[in-house]
């Protein structure tokens, strides 16, 4: 069995400037943050992101100037930060290209890609401006073959007159990066708790990179094949990164870091403070281990999940703003 284990810097180096990319997780959970910091450290440019409900993973990439175009449904950390501050500023300043879909819309698009279909039908979005308006122009769409030529299409069901369906185009990305609880060296993956849309995001990517809290044995993983997320061929590379989603939560491993999230959102509101944040946590540290050292062992300890709950029941979570 060939080992798919590689290092974090090596994994991030696989992603060229301008690549299409989706990242796993949902708002404030299980984003591959160690990988994101490494992308920033390696000064990636012109990334083209596809996502449903990203959070600070996208926000910090956008703020660091790594992103050119996004297709998305939502960009915030929910109660930890009700707007992605750098996303907001990038849109308002005209520094980013984007297209809006609904969350179900983006999920449908990933699902179509995973299923090997050019589109899937849905019943959502009719009557909305998500349906009626387009952020990307026809010229922008035509100029990049990786953007669907149409935002969407409408058909009448051939099985019932008058029954309208919205067809949404499949997503295909060059890369997908997930952060998961458990993986084997061979690339088998187990997600605990909700899967979000990680499985379908992975299945519509050419190259899937997984960062994992824990590397487990092949025998352990194969004892419960019902819990494996993806077929063996889906994952190209595995990186072992404990705490790899900090400051976000990983069910059964650690909780959200409310303090770090507050600091991020405060900093990201002000250009200079955001640069200082990047300096302190990304550019100023050579790697993710050093990042964790800056955060501090005591803080990380306080986030560790109680096995009874899968999170830290005594964590001080009250909104610190």
């Amino acid at each position: 069995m060939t080992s798919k284990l590689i290092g974090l810097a090596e994994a991030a180096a696989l992603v060229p400037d301008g690549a299409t990319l989706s990242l796993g997780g949902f708002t404030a959970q299980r984003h591959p943050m160690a990988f994101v910091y490494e992308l920033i450290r390696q000064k990636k440019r012109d990334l083209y992101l596809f996502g449903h409900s990203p959070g600070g993973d996208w926000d910090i990439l956008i703020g660091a100037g790594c992103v050119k175009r996004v297709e998305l449904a939502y960009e915030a950390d929910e109660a930890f930060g009700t707007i992605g501050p750098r996303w907001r500023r990038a849109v308002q300043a005209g520094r980013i290209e984007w297209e809006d879909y609904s969350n179900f819309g983006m999920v449908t698009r990933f699902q179509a890609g995973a299923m090997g279909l050019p589109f899937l039908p849905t019943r959502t979005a009719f009557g909305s401006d998500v349906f009626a308006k387009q952020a990307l122009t026809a010229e922008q769409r035509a100029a990049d073959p990786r953007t669907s030529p149409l935002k969407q299409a409408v058909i009448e069901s051939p099985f019932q007159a008058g029954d309208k369906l919205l067809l949404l185009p499949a997503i295909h990305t060059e890369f997908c990066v997930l952060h998961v609880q458990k993986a084997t060296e061979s690339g088998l993956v187990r997600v605990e708790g909700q899967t979000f849309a990680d499985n379908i995001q992975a299945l519509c990517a050419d190259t899937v990179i997984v960062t994992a809290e824990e590397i487990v044995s092949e025998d352990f993983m194969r004892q419960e094949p019902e819990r494996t997320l993806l077929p063996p061929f889906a994952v190209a590379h595995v990186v072992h990164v404990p705490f790899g989603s900090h400051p976000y939560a990983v069910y059964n491993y650690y909780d959200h870091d409310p303090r770090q999230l507050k600091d991020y959102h405060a900093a990201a509101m002000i250009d200079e403070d955001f640069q200082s944040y990047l300096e302190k946590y990304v550019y100023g540290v050579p790697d993710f281990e050093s990042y964790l050292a800056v955060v501090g062992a005591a803080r990380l300890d306080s986030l560790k999940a109680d096995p009874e709950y899968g999170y830290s029941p005594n964590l001080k979570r009250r909104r610190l703003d």
Partner: protein
Amino acid sequence: MTTVSNPALTYSLTELMAVTAAREIQDNEVVFAGTGLPMLGAMLAQKTHAPNCLVIFEAGAIGSRLRHLPMSVGDPRTVRGAALAAGLAEVFTYMLQAGKVDVGFISGAQIDRFGNINSTSMGDYHHPSVRFPGSGGSCDIACLAKRTVIIAQHEKRRLPEKIDYITSPGWLNGGESRKEAGLIRGGPSVVVTTRGVLRFRPTSHEAYLASYHPGLTAENVREETGFMLDTADASETPIPTAEELHILRNVVDPERIFLK
């Protein structure tokens, strides 16, 4: 929040709104809950009059038995004791689109008199003065739940005659326009605001003031509304019971994460 000796006698606006939202949930209903007030409301309903309501979170946890209040619909707290942990595709297709969700909660920055909601941006869509997170699942809940409960900040500029972008379709232009647009079910049933409760007329689907919160008058509320608001049928919003407040404060949100 003011601390008082007899908690049944006083309550915060957040508490009133959470209780009002909770009362919109019937027992045995399937509830699609978002972060914040909807979670307070759903958890309160589950622990009072609707013990068998089934709470679904967009990120994949279904039938959660919440022990601690989540801060995200993807929070690990939604998983513990859940009936099922899946993903967004399963929740959106097998539950929401398949018509299994009775009531969904949504909110936004702007709402018009037909319950259309904007959570995308202010000003010109292509060059917005303020950009928000975007739809998330709100558009989908608005389109596909059997009915929606809207939570809103009641200010004149947030309830304008015309909103800048329809993220989540309500009754669109009223009448049959929602159905004509291609939506096969649903529509807003109520708007719980910081000043009162709005409901919708059966045929025109126009919002009217059903109740104003204690301490206000129908006139107060109308003045703070950007569209013409019919207040003919308005009465005072029923206040929380001592039991509801007790559960809200001691069981639902003892950490005071969302309660103020």
